[in-house]
């Protein structure tokens, strides 16, 4: 593997980690919102 190849792989890994982090953050917020919606629905019954 040449230094250029390694640089490309590192850059891709970094961008994939960033996107994964963003998706996980989004899912944490979404699951919290789903929980609130479900609690709200069960209270209104």
């Amino acid at each position, binding site marked *: *593997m040449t230094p250029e190849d390694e640089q490309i792989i590192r850059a891709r890994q970094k961008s994939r980690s960033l996107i994964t982090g963003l998706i996980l953050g989004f899912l944490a917020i*979404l699951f919290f919102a789903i929980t609130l*919606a479900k609690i*709200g629905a069960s209270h209104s019954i």
Partner: protein
Amino acid sequence: MTTATMTSSTPITAHWRDFLALTKPRVMTLVVFIGLCGLLAAPGHIHPVLAFTAILCIALGAGAAASLNQWYEADIDAKMKRTANRPLPAGRMDRVSALHFGVGLSFFSVILMGMATNWLAAAILAVSILFYVFVYTIWLKPRTAQNIVIGGAAGAFPPVIGWAAVTGDVAALPVALFMLVFFWTPPHFWALALFAKPDYAAAGIPMLPVVSGEVATRRQIWLYTAIMAVAAMAPVLLSLTGLIYGTVALLGTTLFAFFAFQVYCRRETDPTRMAPERRLFKYSILYLFLLFGAVVADRWILA
């Protein structure tokens, strides 16, 4: 997708954009839209967060099915000009990553749908993914020219899923919308198959123009357009929808039939001179957007 290139001995580390490309985002747009329309047309109330989650799950399920389709068809895609630049045939991603991504996304979308809305919607979502992957991609597509007729059912599920997410059951209107998409699929895909025939022939896929010829395909397009027209008008005739849908369906279907009739009458065999066939293909997409939009308009404006 990425501008940087690597030497052939380098282990493949796919870019995140390649994973996105694996989900066929453009196809997903129509799937998400008809799923959203099914959800908005359903009677009853659903919390906006849960409605958003249901649509997200439909999108993820469609993305999962598309990923598994590309995982299975990587060799075929490499032979077709239209698909040769997809992440797998272009060598930007290894097949195992695509398989893991597709399977993981399938489970995640179905489980999230079940937890957020109800398990009927989740079950229909699971059936649609399994149908697309096993019945269409693996079984029918490489074997029969009727592949997209039966396989079209996979793409017809989203309005039923959207409806079920709200009501927890399946009624006459979502079934009618299912039938509309089901009978819309053959003329839509065969219009594409007419001008993409050399690609399909090169890849050995038995699409109708390759197996039965272009004249037979043009006749089948016209035949299925007639059946689709009945399916398009059925919601009005059964009083499941109102005046807005009735008007849009009548005008939209008349124009569809006009374009389909033009295609039926032609005998052009050169794909570069198939403007009416391309027009029918493009219009068929707009047609579905219009009719499903009208279903929602009926429910929200007239109700």
